[in-house]
């Protein structure tokens, strides 16, 4: 449909999609076609959601706000799409080599990171929405490894799939981020 094409272009989706694909390919090439390290697929998903988060706000917030269309369902769909596209890019890249991440891992991480990007848009605006999905994993890299629940929550995106605390953290981030963004929209 015509408006979808205009919306997608104005939200710079082609550029962020290209950025996500290029960074995924780069990470995969540098890792030598995949390894068992969970940090690599997590990094690909971080890059994908951060690139997609740019499109969570329009070019003019006042004009967007005076629009008659219903924003809420479109915002929710946009958030879901960021997670889905980031996951699809990762799955496509790792299909070329050894499989490093299971589907459960990819779904958990992409949902949680997309929720973080949405929360970032609500808190800091779309231009700076990437800070949250980048900052948390960066912080997690420097968290001393542990087996307690706080450590599992802090490093949720690198835990093996099926870790209850990590799954619940991702669920809360996905649900909370998406709900806040759907209702409030990007920060003005």
């Amino acid at each position, binding site marked *: 449909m*015509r*408006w979808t094409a*205009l*919306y997608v*272009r*104005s939200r*710079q989706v082609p550029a962020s999609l290209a950025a996500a694909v290029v960074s995924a390919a780069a990470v995969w090439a540098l890792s030598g076609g995949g390894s068992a390290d969970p940090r690599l697929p997590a990094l690909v998903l971080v890059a994908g959601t951060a690139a997609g988060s740019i499109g969570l706000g*329009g*070019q*003019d*917030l*006042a*004009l*967007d*706000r*005076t*629009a*008659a*269309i*219903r924003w809420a369902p479109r915002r929710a769909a946009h958030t879901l799409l960021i997670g889905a596209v980031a996951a699809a890019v990762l799955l496509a890249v790792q299909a070329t080599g050894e499989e490093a991440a299971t589907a459960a891992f990819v779904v958990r991480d992409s949902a949680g990171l997309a929720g973080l990007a949405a929360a970032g848009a609500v808190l800091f605006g779309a231009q700076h929405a990437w800070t949250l999905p980048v900052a948390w994993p960066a912080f997690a890299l420097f968290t001393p490894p542990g087996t307690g629940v706080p450590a599992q929550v802090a490093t949720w995106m690198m835990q093996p799939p099926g870790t209850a605390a990590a799954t619940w953290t991702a669920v809360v981030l996905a649900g909370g981020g998406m709900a806040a963004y759907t209702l409030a929209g990007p920060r003005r």
Partner: protein
Amino acid sequence: MMRAVSAADIAPKAYAWEIQATGLKVRAGAKRMAVDGLDLSLGTGVHGLLGPNGAGKTTLIRALATVLRPAGGSLELLGEPAGGTGGHRELRRRIGYLPQEFGYYKRFTVREFVEYMAWLKEVPDREIPGAVQRAVERVGLADRADSRMKTLSGGMVRRVGIAQAIVNDPAILLLDEPTVGLDPAQRLRFRELLQELGSDACVVVSTHLVEDVAAACTDVVLFAEGRLRFQGTPDGLAAAGGPGHVGDSPLERGYSALLSDSGQGRGSW
């Protein structure tokens, strides 16, 4: 292009004024009350909103455009209370708004940008191409309709802004400083357009150019420190000034006469 007359066009109006504010208060930022107890009724016609810098003109227009929610008082637009928590979708379809500065996707062509805005305003799909063409022609950009936004001059961008504001044939049209960046010839053309639009819509134009008001407005609203100072015809504004007041034209003398009570407009910036 012929346009079909829809039921909404011939339905009788159920309201006396397009814009009616009573004791309206609107906050700018967290603390400052930029519109502070405004009583204002505006009907069909071109209303020039005049006032010194910082008078609250932009804040008032943003509230009328449903961008800002009033902090107090009541505001009725087209007979519908504005400022509640609802989406105001019905209302927003019938409002056109040109912000003082607006953002746009730079790789859109003029036509694509105006089309996108028409979609945001829920203009029916099959009417969009015609409405876009008409709006672009009215601002004199038909020959640049397929140029990208980033190739346009400042005055042209301003005119694209006017085109997007009128694409949905609004009943309330709010233009914040529309003549900034227009050259004298464009300004004359714009005044004609304003008079055309004002024949069947409520047009509110904020400006600090007194001569714009004299040439194109049927009604002057003088606004200072968040309150209404004067509302009447341009002749009424001119009549308020005497030879002792600052200004080069009767309207400017009237403007400074009405503002001088508060110590503004005379000597101070």
